[in-house]
């Protein structure tokens, strides 16, 4: 884009510098008109896929919006699911909605500090070097493992008697399914995304900025806390958002490690909040699955309503990250 015209526009000399087809466009913009046929076909394919993808995404969102607005009743958010024969009798999905919130909070509360810590170690210290490299590939491996595999592994861990206090135990057998178990495993799902995002943020800070802090007598720790981490706040937010998205969207771990009951199943014992966290429950994704025509409940209207709530949650996360990024842009950045 050129705002100001060149002071002395070059005199066009036809046939000398002009590539074929250049006369079709005015100004100095490069156009695809001069490209070879194969390049133009390639560009058209890129364009078509982009537009196709956009259309699909818009279709999904719009369809869910329409269905959601049609079927969602606010009272569903605070009415627990109930047994019944028609959609009017089965109540809402308050337990699933709360369950999603709980699982997301637990998962991110574990994954965010751990992810930031790992990223700081890998980028700022990275010693011993071999161990750091091994850790890097381990995290990449976890990112690639399907969550159902993690869930299976979780059943082994959380059914052990040492961790029995995290779930229900009856007659010496540890149930191994609870919000604690699901939250802990889901944090593993979110962790690689957070680590990757924070590492990217730390790596984007020029080296001389760190040195400027060392050069006024600050330690590495002080520099990390006061300069580096505040600078990569947007990337931390992005990582947390992506992680939350994965946690909210996961179904396999919920089915295997949360019990996937339709209502909360608190374990009597310690006291109010902990009893619920030690018990089984469900989340919105699991509710959508159960309520869809393939599930046990088969009440598609509520499935749409719950899916719409999920969609709103994800959109809200996106908006939050946008706000953080915009605020960071306002603070400016270094010239490279």
């Amino acid at each position, binding site marked *: 884009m050129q705002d100001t015209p060149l002071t002395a526009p070059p005199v066009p000399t036809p046939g000398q510098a002009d590539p074929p087809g250049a006369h079709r466009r005015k100004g100095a913009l490069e156009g695809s008109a001069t490209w070879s046929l194969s390049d133009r076909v390639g560009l058209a394919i890129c364009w078509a896929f982009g537009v196709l993808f956009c259309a699909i995404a818009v279709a999904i969102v719009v369809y869910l919006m329409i269905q959601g607005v049609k079927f969602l009743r606010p009272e569903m958010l605070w009415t627990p699911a109930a047994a019944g024969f028609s959609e009017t009798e089965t109540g809402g999905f308050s337990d699933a909605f709360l369950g999603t919130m709980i699982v997301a909070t637990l998962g991110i509360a574990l994954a965010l500090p751990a992810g930031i810590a790992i990223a700081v170690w890998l980028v700022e210290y990275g010693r011993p070097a071999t161990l750091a490299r091994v850790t890097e590939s381990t995290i990449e491996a976890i990112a690639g493992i399907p969550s159902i595999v993690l869930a299976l592994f979780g059943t082994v861990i959380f059914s052990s008697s040492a961790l029995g206090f995290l779930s229900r135990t009856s007659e010496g057998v540890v149930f191994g399914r609870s919000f604690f178990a699901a939250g802990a495993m889901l944090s593993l799902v979110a962790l690689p995304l957070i680590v990757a995002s924070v590492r990217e943020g730390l790596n984007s800070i*020029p080296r*001389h*900025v760190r*040195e*400027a*802090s*060392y*050069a*006024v*007598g*600050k*330690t590495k*720790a*002080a520099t990390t*806390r*006061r*300069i580096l981490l*505040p*600078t990569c706040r947007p990337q931390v937010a992005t990582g947390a958002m992506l992680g939350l998205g994965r946690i909210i969207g996961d179904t396999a771990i919920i089915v295997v490690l949360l019990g996937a009951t339709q209502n909360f199943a608190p374990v009597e014992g310690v006291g109010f909040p902990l009893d619920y966290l030690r018990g089984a429950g469900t989340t919105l994704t699991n509710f959508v699955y159960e309520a869809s025509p393939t599930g046990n409940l088969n009440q598609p209207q509520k499935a749409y309503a719950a899916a719409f709530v999920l969609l709103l949650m994800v959109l809200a996360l996106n908006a939050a990250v946008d706000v953080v990024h915009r605020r960071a842009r*306002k*603070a*400016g*950045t*270094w*010239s*490279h």
Partner: protein
Amino acid sequence: MEPLTRSASDMDPTRVGSNSDALAPPPIRRLQLEDPEPAREATAPLAPGDGQAPQQSGFTTAKRSVGAPQFSIRRMEIDEVSVHYGAKEAVKRVSLPVRQGEVLALIGPSGCGKTTLLRSLNRLTELTSAARLTGRILLDDVDITEIEPTLLRRRVTMVFQQPNPFPMSVFDNIAYVLREQGSRRARKKTLEPAVHSALDRAGLFEEVKDNLDHPALKLSGGQQQRLCIARALAAEPEVLLLDEPCSALDPKSTQVIEDLIVKLRDDVAVVIVTHNLQQAYRIADHVAFMYLGDLVEYNSATALFGSPREQRTREYVSGAFG
């Protein structure tokens, strides 16, 4: 966001760092007056119209903006220092004095080791794991390897080539230096005088005093660099290291910073690395010319540029190679 208004003081060297007691001797730990001989050396060809010496090396257009130093106190002593990066020897047995009251310029072509030498003075080279230093560097007669690095780096602070204020407000940039390590303690109110004085010494206070909460990264390049100088001064250092501080700036900001550097030499010992020979000639009292890790020549600025002793120096300052 509009950058803070740049006042006319940008152009006026007398306004920069309007420090009334600039002439009063600064607080010093040891008072060891040097033989003032080098100082006189620097004054000799200063008389206007005396273009003899500069003509010889093509410096007729450059004007020295610096008068003779009032005094000079030895702060640092570089003694037979060599720095190796693995097998490569970046600095070869260099010995130099660093004096308060003077500006020392390190010049030489790229890769000659001048930045490495500068970074050794506050042990920043140690952050590059491959670097190995031999020889001694003394700060007020104490070997710097015996000083805890964070303490050393508060006494020998540094300004970098790229302006690199921290992504926070102007005030917080200085306050960060004044506070303990990572602490957020020490209220804004209690830090205010020190922050103002640091900004004032860097000649920035007048321009930013109305909005100290302005994001530092939204200042102009020249203002950012002066903020970095203010930050380096806030630690009350004895030596200020400048690594090509003007190479990313426009000529106008460069002049403001050059005037500032000359003004600062009475309070701190100044060592500046520069690619710009005219700049070295304008502001330095002593110049060290390095080539491929060797210290080729060390002399007063006028002598080194006017009548270089070494053949390589003569070629370099006359532009035969760069």
